[in-house]
């Protein structure tokens, strides 16, 4: 990394982190403020090997918890990524969530694709966003742009600059 354009990498990954965070946050907020929203339909129409598990989650009593956890996870990833704090923990949650989304409707060529725009062969946008979270996990940028900046830098140091 040292030899390449280090700043360029930092800026790119920071942008990636903020945009992914933006996306999660907006999804979470929209659902939070729409009391009628439920993941029931998405789960009930699940395809692929984990179909029975997802069907189980749609049961009354369970589905409310699933919906609440889903919103919480979305907001958590959104907040940690946009603010640039605890982003590695956020990335893990994001990877888990996206893996579940992918497994509920995997882009396997032998499965029917329900409510999908575009054409996919194994790899779809959920999977790509999951990899983006993986990048963010491995290259935290919160100390470069984000609340982590304060945690990493000691103000005393700044003060000495100011005295120059």
């Amino acid at each position, binding site marked *: 990394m040292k030899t390449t354009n280090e700043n360029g990498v930092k800026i790119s990954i920071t942008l990636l982190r*903020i945009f992914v*965070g*933006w996306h999660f*946050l*907006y999804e*979470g*907020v*929209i659902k*939070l*403020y*729409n009391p009628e929203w*439920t993941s*029931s*339909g998405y789960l*009930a129409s699940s395809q692929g090997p984990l179909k*029975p598990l997802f*069907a189980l989650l*749609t049961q*009354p009593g369970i*589905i409310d918890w699933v919906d609440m956890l889903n919103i919480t996870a979305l907001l958590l990833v*959104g*907040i940690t990524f*946009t*603010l*640039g704090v605890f982003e590695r923990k956020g990335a893990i949650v994001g990877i888990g969530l996206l893996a579940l989304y992918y497994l509920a409707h995997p882009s396997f060529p032998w499965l029917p694709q329900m409510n999908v725009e575009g054409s996919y062969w194994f790899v779809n946008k959920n999977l790509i966003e999951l990899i983006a979270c993986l990048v963010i996990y491995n290259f935290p940028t919160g100390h*470069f*742009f*984000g*609340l982590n*900046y*304060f945690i990493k*830098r000691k*103000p*005393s140091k*700044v*003060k000495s*600059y*100011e005295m120059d």
Partner: protein
Amino acid sequence: MKWTRRDLLKGLGGLPILGAVWWAGAASAAYKRNERSEVLNQLGISPSLPPSVPNIDGEPVRVGIIGFGIRGEQLCRSLGFATKEWYDEMKIEMEENPDNKAVEDFERQEKLNVKLVGVCDIFDVRAERALNSFNTLENKIKRYSTYQEMIHSGDVDAIVIATPDHWHAPMAIEALKNNVHVYVEKPMTHTLAETYELQTAAEESEAVFAVGHQHRQTLSFKTAKDIIEKGTLGHVSLIQTNTNRNDDNGAWNYDIHEKASAQTIDWQQFLGTAPKVPFNKNHFFRWRKWWAYGSGLSGDLLTHDYDRLNCVLNMGIPDSVVASGGVYTHNDGRNVPDVLQVNMEFPRFSTGSSQVKGKEQGMTFCYSATLGNGFNRPTILMGHDATMELGNKLTVWPDGSSTRYAPMLEEGKIYPHTPIYQYNPAANVPDAISSATSQYFADKGLMWTYIDGVRVDSTFLHMREWLSAIKNGTNVSCGIQEGFDEAITAHMAGLSWKLGRKIEWDHEKGELVRIEGINFDEVLLAGEWKIESRELEKV
């Protein structure tokens, strides 16, 4: 200890992004909610609540079943009695499809205050099947060899009739004359003369009479009624209902039981007043294909669609009916058509109008059926202001040229291709409907409805309503008046197809407008009328 502006920007730069995204999401959700509630307030539709039925207390009603075939078994399950054979079948189904909830639904069903005391079926295998499962030490069940014996036994308070169509009226009339309560399957009658006779018998009897149009219990239809009464659709000028089926069962080619023979079936009793033909298994199991016993699409399926809309609109008997079609998909010896189009005219009917007085009046109800294609065509009500798709779900789309919604359309609050109202009581219930045919029945309200998000068998509700009428004197939703409308309309469709001409109803006289030289009932029962009449023309 001080942060520079650069520090703050780098450290807190995410905050405004977070704030902006949060605000945008919250604002957009609130905006959509407001828009929706504004539109909904304007419409003022109230989704129907389940009917409250008083308890059916006291001595259990003693019920006898006449005809324990496909439908008879279903009706008994709705009363709370399932055969061992059904449990076995469901076990196999559940192995194939673990989501199949039929047994669970059945066992959860409320217990009705009834005693099944008798069965009358002229096919030994079926009568014995009922006895084998339902005859227990606590509950003795008797087999009757004729319906008269059952009705006159003094041991039954009420009978359920699930025999072929040509037996409905004779059995119902006999029971009503003896003050035995009747639940009779659709179509209510097989001829015009019977329809009047049954009407008189029902009016003169002390017993409760109900016709088996269970879809009247579907909650979405009750909501649809409210939607139309509120003028949401404006003036409805056209209704389209359809039958789309493309398999053997759908074309009434049911299995022939291996034990069926002249020894196990009382053939003369099956025939009744039908032409005396020799024993014929095909006729016995597939009776819907011949006018002598059934009436094909018009009696078997148009009746469902007609009554479904009569329950929503209460439009009564059409002024006139024109039908066409033929035997085009199953030329297998049947004499009822398998492709049929029926146009029913209601020139004086209106669902209300948003335009100048007198501009809009009259409606055509078009029933279109084929047994040679299964593409799902939904039921559509087409009004000047909006279009409604009627099924277990309801969807209402505004019309781009609506008068009522013009201001909202102009302001961009609603759009012609986006529904303004949707009613889906099953939203949280993942269904396991296995075949296209069962989806067809479900959409017509024939299988179940949803109460508080729970699936409930509509036939169960319909029978409970009948039992409550017997015990508590409450009303039935499909009584003699509704049955009369249904039967006359179906017969008009059959006659029009057979005669190849328009059949008119005289509302004043309460009878069909006569046609010189034609005996309507003779035509209705005749097998080869179409051909005979064509030959007559040639002479």
